[in-house]
């Protein structure tokens, strides 16, 4: 699929909580085909300290309405500036970038695991899995009950399990502690979240010989495979997360 550079209109900026918001963008032309796991590079205007673009996963796509969403956590100056954008503002964006999650070929039991803003690509993936006849389970970890987002959206896709670090909702602890992991046999796990969480989930899957794909969030200079700044060490040498990733099978990573 050809990459594009386009100026798109913000049709909604929805604040979910103190740190998270959803930007909904509408295409002028027909949207390109996007796949779960792919991302977009956003230019932050009027933020002189934010020189480089910022990468965000495609969170949800509505081809009928010709719109798509990004779920963004305020992490610093760029995301702060984006959080202040209003309906009608224009965003310059390069997309769709990167590879995508590989859907299982047979009827496998699938689990999606996400934490914090790392849930961003999982909604789109979950919807795609459901559309392809899978019944994925979804395991989401948050700091506390106030951080839980889009619970109802995930309920439409499959069974949803929650953990919070303080136990204020769902099971207390981290995603790798959840009882769902021991009560169901999964064939494939998709994971996105903080690196420590992905490493823990990766280690769990490796121990149980479960196929596992993770989506990495390495620092990116260009997003299009030219600066070679975003590399991750793999069994095939240093690979760019922006072109060979962001989705990797954990067996390829030197974790």
């Amino acid at each position, binding site marked *: 699929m*050809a*990459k*594009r*550079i386009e100026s798109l209109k913000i049709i909604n900026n929805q604040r979910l909580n103190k740190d998270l918001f959803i930007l909904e963008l509408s295409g002028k032309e027909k949207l390109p085909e996007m796949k779960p796991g792919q991302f977009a590079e956003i*230019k932050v205007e009027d933020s*002189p*300290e*934010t*020189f*480089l*673009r910022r990468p965000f996963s495609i969170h949800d796509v509505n081809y009928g309405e010709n719109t798509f969403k990004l779920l963004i956590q305020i992490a610093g100056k760029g995301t702060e500036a984006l959080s202040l954008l209003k309906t009608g503002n224009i965003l310059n964006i*390069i997309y769709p970038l990167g590879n995508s999650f590989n859907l299982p070929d047979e009827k496998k039991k699938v689990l999606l695991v996400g934490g914090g803003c790392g849930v961003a690509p999982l909604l789109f993936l979950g919807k795609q899995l459901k559309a392809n006849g899978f019944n994925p389970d979804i395991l989401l970890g948050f700091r506390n009950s106030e951080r839980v987002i889009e619970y109802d959206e995930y309920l439409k896709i499959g069974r949803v399990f929650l953990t919070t670090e303080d136990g204020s909702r769902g099971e207390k602890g981290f995603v790798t502690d959840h009882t769902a992991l021991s009560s169901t046999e999964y064939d494939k796990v998709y994971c996105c979240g903080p690196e420590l969480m992905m490493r823990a989930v990766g280690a769990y899957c490796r121990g149980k010989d479960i196929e596992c794909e993770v989506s990495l969030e*390495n*620092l990116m*200079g*260009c*997003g*299009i*495979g*030219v*600066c*070679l*700044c*975003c*590399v*991750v*060490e793999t069994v095939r*040498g*240093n690979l760019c997360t922006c072109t060979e990733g962001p989705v990797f099978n954990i067996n390829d990573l030197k974790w």
Partner: protein
Amino acid sequence: MVKLDFKIGNLHFKNPVLAASGTFGYGSEFDDFIDVSRLGGIIVKGTTLEPREGNPYPRMAETPSGMLNAVGLQNKGIDYFVDNIYPHLQEYNTNVIVNINGSCIDDYVALAERINSLRRIPAIELNISCPNVKMGGMTFGINPASTREVTKAVRSVCKKKLIVKLSPNVTNIIDFARIVEEEGADSVSLINTLVGMSVDIKNMRPSLSTVTGGLSGPAIKPVALRMVWQVAKAVKIPVIGVGGITTADSAIEFFLAGASAIQVGTASFIDPQASLKILEGIENYLDSKGFSDIKDIIGYINRDL
């Protein structure tokens, strides 16, 4: 129609906007965004004799109006280049230049010899200014004697046009430009990145795995411009300006200061169409100022000085 072409010796460039090494991949990464053949030339990724994995991650840090990189010349080596990349490069109807890097003089010589046999590569850019490798690279470019030695050695075998890329991390860049001119370089390009660093205060450690790295982007433009102006007055060979050019206006400053051509680097990361926008902007500027040939503005500011 404004005349935009320029020459290095008898090598003709249809226009003076080139893509800088290490910021334009092998060109194909930009095919979705621009017609690469419209550029005056592209300088492909820094190439070494043997494959290199580069430095450990993190290799990049954003800085005000710029970025630091410590990629360390990750590339698959000259054999891979010749077998797998060169065949595709021939599809571009523009000058494709290879940026070569070595850890010793023999490496540079061997690379130049390999490239002699590549019919569609009309020039090499000798990178003696990469700050991100322990051996070779900038160590050649910040020492007058080794700058002379490596240029002389490569010149003696190189059948292509020879552009030497200078390091800004020196006290007097004019000396280095004169040395490479004396040793037979056909052109100089400047500047490579400026050595800098950044500290991650959240994690209380250097932002880059190598601690220091190369600064690029608009932050270095005034330094690049000053050096291009100094060098253009000191040598007769064409000077190619590079460093922080993001718009046609910034490119035009370099021509007015004495550059015969320019390279667009980091700007392509933020806008993959930047190089062509700059080309179009230069044309418009010349048109609006009533110039019919870009040569008429090269070094223009020196008239009144």
